[in-house]
């Protein structure tokens, strides 16, 4: 029987529809659920009040990440150090109690497997191709790098998934972002996704699931694909996808929660069917020429405020839309920038290397490659590296990366979300700038009054060395990662 060509998104969607209501809303099965301490306490509390249980506890994995300080967690004698902030401590304690009380596997803050949920899921093989993955965190889009339909949800939906292992959803539209050609030397996955967001806008992907297509993505490692899909939400798309392939399977094989033996073979056979069919129709298509992508940096307070490092701070007059002109002026005021200033003349005082976007081993290697034999500039007061998980941290230490960072004047921290959103003590001071490998340059995101410039790990390292935003390609490191 001939079937209509389908997109990857349609294939995953179709495989998870339990039933469709008369009004078109679908009841969709959720294969994997990640839980952290910030968006779950109210959900567990509501379950308790309603006398509800968790339908499939083995399909949820809990790990603390947002609130944890990134300073040492154990005293020299091995005892667990207390969390100073009483509110953070209470929230972390709630997860530690709720997870076992509802039968959910919990990775404690002191375990080597602890880390940012979006680093831990793929690393443990909990996140798998073709699955539906949700988490009370918008950067769940990240797991699309493995070919999973992964998206962020609110706390009411966390409760819904815990109680029923399903969600009530409307099918999204599909968008193809096709990138032709290859990235130039020194241009990374982070630069590419920032460039894409700059092209389609912070709301350009609203209502869509994006599939990233083209040989450039096929050549990327899983770490790079996770970086790309992670920031889909910054273009407004709830989810981003890259079709799974041999790179994906090689990454997952042997991971603790990945299928094994005959299950592995059956899984791979299924995963090989997960790609958009020839002739599948997308609701929207965007084409990007990879050769036009330069190392990217943000100048404003929306992730769409992207410019090539060789560019200048724009003027409100550069924009046709009146509301955008108003927004640009507000952004420039907040960022303390003057139109026309070359981006490479913007000094920075802080550097943050971390977050679910850029805290995996390849990210740390890319930054260390730039920092090796160099030291941060004197005007850079605070530079920290926060590995995405304890396992990333251990691997980096095995490779000697930690010593490169500390020799360069960076602090080498424990894993967590850290200065990406400043819920823990890691914050950028008011009025100061930060070259950050995170995902959001919103007003106050890294701390009240903090001024964020989003960059790749290599560009963050270049900024640390020069004390201003800088083109890493001019520092004599040629990498294409």
């Amino acid at each position, binding site marked *: 029987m001939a079937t209509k060509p389908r997109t990857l998104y349609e294939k995953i969607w179709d495989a998870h529809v339990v039933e469709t209501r008369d009004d078109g809303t679908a009841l969709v099965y959720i294969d994997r659920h990640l839980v952290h301490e910030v968006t779950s306490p109210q959900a567990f509390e509501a379950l308790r009040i309603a006398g509800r249980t968790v339908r499939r506890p083995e399909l949820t994995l809990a790990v603390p990440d947002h609130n944890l300080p990134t300073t040492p967690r154990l005293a020299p004698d091995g005892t667990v150090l207390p969390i100073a902030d009483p509110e953070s401590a209470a929230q972390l304690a709630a997860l530690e109690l709720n997870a076992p009380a509802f039968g959910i596997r919990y990775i404690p803050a002191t375990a080597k497997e602890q880390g940012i949920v979006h680093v831990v899921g793929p690393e443990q093989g909990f996140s798998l191709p073709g699955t539906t993955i949700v988490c009370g965190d918008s950067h769940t889009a990240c797991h699309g790098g493995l070919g999973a339909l992964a998206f962020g949800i609110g706390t009411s939906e966390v409760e819904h998934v815990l109680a029923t292992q399903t969600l009530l959803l409307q099918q999204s539209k599909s968008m193809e972002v096709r990138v032709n050609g290859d990235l130039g030397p020194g241009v990374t996955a982070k630069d590419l996704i920032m460039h894409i967001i700059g092209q389609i806008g912070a709301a350009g992907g609203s209502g869509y699931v994006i599939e990233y297509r083209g040989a450039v993505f096929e050549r990327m490692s899983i770490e790079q694909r996770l970086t790309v899909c992670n920031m889909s939400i910054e273009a407004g798309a709830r989810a981003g996808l890259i079709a799974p392939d041999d790179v994906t399977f090689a990454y997952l094989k042997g991971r603790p929660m990945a299928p094994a033996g005959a299950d592995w073979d059956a899984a791979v056979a299924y995963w090989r069917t997960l790609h958009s069919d020839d002739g599948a129709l997308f609701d929207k298509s965007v084409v990007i020429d990879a050769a036009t992508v330069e190392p990217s940096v943000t100048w404003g307070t929306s992730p769409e405020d992207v410019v090539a490092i060789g560019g200048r701070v724009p003027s409100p007059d550069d924009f046709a839309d009146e509301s955008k002109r*108003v927004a640009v002026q507000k952004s420039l005021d907040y960022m303390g920038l003057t139109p026309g200033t070359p981006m490479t003349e913007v000094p920075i005082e802080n550097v943050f290397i971390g977050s679910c976007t850029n805290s995996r081993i390849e990210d740390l290697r890319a930054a260390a490659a730039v920092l090796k034999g160099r030291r941060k500039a004197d005007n850079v007061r605070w530079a920290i590296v926060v590995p995405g998980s304890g396992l990333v941290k251990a691997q980096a230490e095995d490779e000697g990366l930690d010593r490169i960072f500390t020799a360069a004047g960076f602090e080498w921290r424990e894993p967590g979300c850290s200065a990406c959103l400043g819920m823990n003590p890691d914050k950028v001071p008011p009025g100061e700038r930060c070259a950050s490998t995170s995902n959001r340059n919103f007003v106050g995101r890294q701390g009240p009054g903090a001024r964020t410039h989003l960059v790749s790990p290599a560009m963050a390292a270049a900024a640390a060395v020069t004390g201003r935003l800088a083109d890493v390609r001019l520092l004599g490191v040629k990498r294409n990662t």
Partner: protein
Amino acid sequence: MQPLTRVEGGAIPLGLKNVDTDIIIPARWLKTISRDGLGQGAFETLRAVPGNVIDDPAYAGAPILIAGDNFGCGSSREHAAWALGDLGIKVVIAPSFSDIFSGNAVKNGILPVVLAQSAVDRLLEVARQGEPITVDLETQTVTTPYQDRFAFTLDPFRRDCLLNGLDEIALTMARDTAIGAFEGARANGQPWLMRGTAI
């Protein structure tokens, strides 16, 4: 959840585009384990500026907020909806909303109304004149004392949930047999999918 059918009252003319959920409720307020009391942290950065529109006495108690494109973008934090609810907001009108925020809003009895930019501009004008705006979910219209009348649509399921104050989880739990059948088929065909952490 309280049913929502019709809201009439003043509107806060915020007007900004790309209002992210960090603006609606900054991260430091997310350390709570409760849904209550978040109104005091709502729009904290904007409200630090004297003469800001949120605290303007002219709009005190207004149940409607009018904003620009892409309202509620960014973080999935439902605290944003809780904070707006705590401020007494029952309707947000904007040219577009982030997907996650609009879902969170509806689950907390807040109606996201999508209207064309021209209609939003007109409503901002009416709001600044201190005139009331009426939002009717039954008829899916927004009207003003000046005979303006703008039609909007909301996904039928969400509309039904809001109009009747439905508990989505209870609705889904009533479909237990269908979910069980789906899981049974899964366990036979792709058992590895059902193992999760229990491998």
